[in-house]
């Protein structure tokens, strides 16, 4: 199956390991990813906070580029990109005036018909196909994983239509299929603070700290994420969180594609495990997973 791949800005910089692990597991799963040539930033939250038409026009331009590629649809890694691409599809389909204004801005009419999938949805589909079990070379037995979905994969449900809005299961199912243990915890769809980490750091440190504390007290060895901004708030800022809240955390935060890649037998280097601030290798070793 061929997809038009939309990596998004973070995967070219702060989330290179998300890209590396996504490309590797896609290959093993038989998903062919072809990057959309000339894609532009989705505008993320700052665009919709500033100008509605801009926030629809930017993703519409990229989706039009993807439409010409004749694939199954667009495959996205970042939860924020996913939400903005889907919001654009919804807006141009539903509102003729928006469609017209967007067409004027991008110089072509986009009708909103390119399907958009998050990588996690695709992994879940692949898991249900025969032959998946044979791909698992390394069982992750004993590893306790808190699956963190955050906000924009599941919300707003009218736009994303992704799993259950309050208690999603796709990542938990993946974790279980790899022999690891999905942890039951309360913060799987709570907000990490997102871009408030720039402007109101205390809020993001508190929200992210609450998430990590709950994961830890629920017995998780690692937190699994599906969004580069969540990863950066939980991992990159973890030392700041510890200082802010006066607690010890030391909770590694892995992309779900890295966990899947470990089970497929890829090395730590291939999956970019060394790029995290909190080193996941010791806890993996403790659980008998030698990478």
């Amino acid at each position: 199956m061929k997809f038009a791949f939309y990596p998004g800005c973070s995967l070219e910089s702060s989330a290179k390991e998300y890209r590396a692990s996504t490309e590797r597991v896609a290959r093993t799963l038989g998903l062919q990813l072809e990057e959309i040539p000339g894609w532009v930033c989705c505008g993320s939250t700052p665009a919709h906070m500033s100008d509605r038409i801009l926030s629809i026009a930017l993703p519409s331009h990229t989706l039009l580029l993807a439409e010409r590629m004749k694939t199954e649809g667009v495959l996205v890694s970042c939860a924020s990109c996913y939400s903005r691409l889907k919001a654009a599809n919804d807006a141009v389909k539903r509102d003729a005036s928006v469609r017209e204004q967007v067409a004027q801005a991008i110089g072509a009419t986009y009708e909103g018909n390119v399907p958009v999938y998050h990588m996690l949805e695709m992994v879940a589909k692949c898991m249900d196909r025969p032959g998946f079990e044979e791909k698992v070379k390394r069982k992750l037995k004993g590893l306790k994983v808190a699956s963190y979905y955050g906000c924009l994969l599941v919300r707003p449900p009218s736009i994303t239509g992704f799993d259950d809005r309050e208690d999603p299961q796709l990542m938990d199912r993946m974790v279980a299929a790899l022999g690891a243990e999905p942890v039951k915890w309360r913060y799987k769809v709570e907000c990490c603070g997102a871009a408030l980490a720039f402007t109101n750091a205390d809020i993001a440190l508190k929200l992210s700290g609450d998430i990590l504390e709950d994961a830890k007290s629920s017995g998780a060895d690692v937190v699994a994420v599906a969004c580069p901004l969540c990863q950066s708030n939980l991992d990159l800022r973890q030392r700041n969180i510890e200082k802010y809240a006066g607690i010890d955390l030391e909770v590694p935060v892995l992309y779900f594609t890295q966990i899947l890649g470990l089970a497929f037998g890829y090395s730590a280097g291939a999956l970019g495990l060394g790029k995290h601030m909190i080193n996941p290798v010791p806890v993996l070793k403790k659980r008998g997973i030698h990478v």
Partner: protein
Amino acid sequence: MHETGPARQKAPFAEFLEEVERESGEKVRVCYQCGKCSAGCPVGYAMDLLPSQVLRLVQLGLKHEALSSSTIWLCASCEACAARCPREIEIVRVMDCLRHKARAAGYTHAPREVPIFLQSFLANLKRFGRMYEAMLVGSYNLASGHLTKDMDKAPAMILKRKIALMPPRAKGMERAREIIKNLEESKRR
């Protein structure tokens, strides 16, 4: 003057409510103040008004109070409110609309950092077409005056090659600038 009786006048507060409803596409008037949005708002503890209170201000046409609230800037757009609203109001769209209006009307109330961040982000997007993360941090720190913000993480990020030092480059990225310019022009007309 009408001879048949007093003219049916629009309530004075209706104007602002109608404006917000038209621009956001959301029916704010159907909010019955159950407070579910406020109960689930992760940032509610830090806001001067709760999300449901801001909706009430809009219903009452209290424009100044709504636009000067810190709530509209602290809202993280996490969508927890929209996922749970029994009246199916997409509250983030209402917040977006209030943010646009506050900026257009020149409200500079705290927290000033959020509009500065928006500006840095959009300037970066216009210049490069894709986010140049190193530049985003740099330009935001300069504009906000928080010069050392996040600099503690820079050495490790550079060492781990987790931050691209050079700007993104790809054919076609300049289309973002054209799109932004087109929109700016159509607004001026």
